């Protein structure tokens, strides 16, 4: 058992005191701002934009089965759990993220929050489960190898009338085009791969058979787009 594994094992049963949390929080790299106890918030990249929060708030979670793809530290999974989701499955591929102890940070938060969230280190391409009422896919699609294939798998993982909440980097433009970054990185980040226009992103979603209910851009200058889509079929 490695040190990290031993730490995780202990986390599952740990009774957390504020000082412990404050001490442990320093062990991890934080992408998301998660409130672990009153006044104790992880030092992430910043709170979500109003536009992204609006997307998350646009549906209810009570009693629902939720899949959070590319969960990072797990912020949205824990939030869905807090809002009464029946079952939350978070997936990510920490090995490909180049963020140290990412899975451990998730498990740490889960332990502190006592959140009933399942976590699997798994690629979306090998994800076979289905029947989810909600799929969250934030800040991910532009980083991955095969976005269309991922959307097809997301479609298949949704229950009829289930919702996809999608947020993705976009590039300005009125046509349905997509930039591809391989030889030349986008914004100095070699993990950026596909950056579509908003219209192209909408086309992708429609292409896999989802119906776009609503969509809006991220904050001005952010080059982001938010989409609420629904799988066809009776509830």
């Amino acid at each position, binding site marked *: 058992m490695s040190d990290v594994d031993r730490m995780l094992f202990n986390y599952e049963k740990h009774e957390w005191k504020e000082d412990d949390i404050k001490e442990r929080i320093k062990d991890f790299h934080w992408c998301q701002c998660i409130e672990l106890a009153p006044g104790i918030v992880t030092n992430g990249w910043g709170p979500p934009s109003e536009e992204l929060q609006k997307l998350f708030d646009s549906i209810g979670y009570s009693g629902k089965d939720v899949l959070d793809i590319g969960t990072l530290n797990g912020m949205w999974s824990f939030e869905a759990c807090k809002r009464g989701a029946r079952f939350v499955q978070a997936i990510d591929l920490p090995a490909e993220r180049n963020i140290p102890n990412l899975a451990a940070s998730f498990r740490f938060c889960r332990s502190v929050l006592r959140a009933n969230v399942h976590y699997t280190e798994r690629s979306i391409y090998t994800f076979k489960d289905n029947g989810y009422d909600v799929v969250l896919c934030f800040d991910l699609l532009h980083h991955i190898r095969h976005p*269309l*294939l991922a959307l097809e798998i997301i479609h298949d993982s949704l229950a009829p009338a289930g919702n996809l909440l999608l947020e993705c980097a976009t590039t300005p433009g009125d*046509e*349905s*085009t997509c*930039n*591809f970054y391989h*030889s030349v990185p986008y914004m100095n980040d070699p993990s950026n791969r596909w950056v579509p226009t908003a219209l192209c992103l909408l086309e992708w979603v429609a292409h896999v058979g989802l119906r776009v209910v609503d969509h809006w851009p991220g904050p001005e200058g952010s080059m982001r787009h938010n989409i609420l889509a629904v799988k066809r079929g009776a509830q």
Partner: protein
Amino acid sequence: MTPEQIQRMHELSWYHSIELAPGIITPGLWAPANYHVKETMDRVPFKDKRVLDIGTLNGLWAFEAWQRGADVTVIDTPEAAKVAGASFAFAQSILGAQAVKYMEYSVFDLPCLDVGRDFDIILFFGVYYHVADPCLAFRKITKTLAKGGYVLVEGAAAPGNGVWASFNSQTVIYAKDKTTYWVPTGQCLLDWMKYAGLEIVEHWPVAYGERYHVVGRKPC
């Protein structure tokens, strides 16, 4: 060819113009045969090579490879086989090209045991822009090629600089063809191939940049 055979040829539907006998050419919808593709095939030797033709339709380029002395396998989707398989079989029998193996698979099924792997040459003509995941298709091709094997690619392109592709599906239709999804710039096509692990040997645009040809190679 007998008069009955010629009559049968006219009853069948054809995309490709294939010379079945001296002066007797199938009435292909896309007539005449694209000499740019033939020139692309001239870039690599076919004699005694194991060749896979992906999306063969009526088999024009598969038979060309066979005539150049290759051991040829072709694949096409069940949907394509429905509209082009009978014509393929007819051309095959007239040409005496029974050695060419025809199987109903998509590029996304590759590599698979039935089709085999380690091909010396893969032909990928007129296909990448008809699939929703061209990058995945190129990865499948890389996995199916032998080390040092070639892939010959031809397809629709967007004239212009930059590394981008148009995506056409629901509201945007390219050239009135609903089966065309991606139309990349030449540079984007090259990056897709490089990203899939292929080296670029040679590449050039034709038709004012609206089509693009690439000779790619799996590294040794």
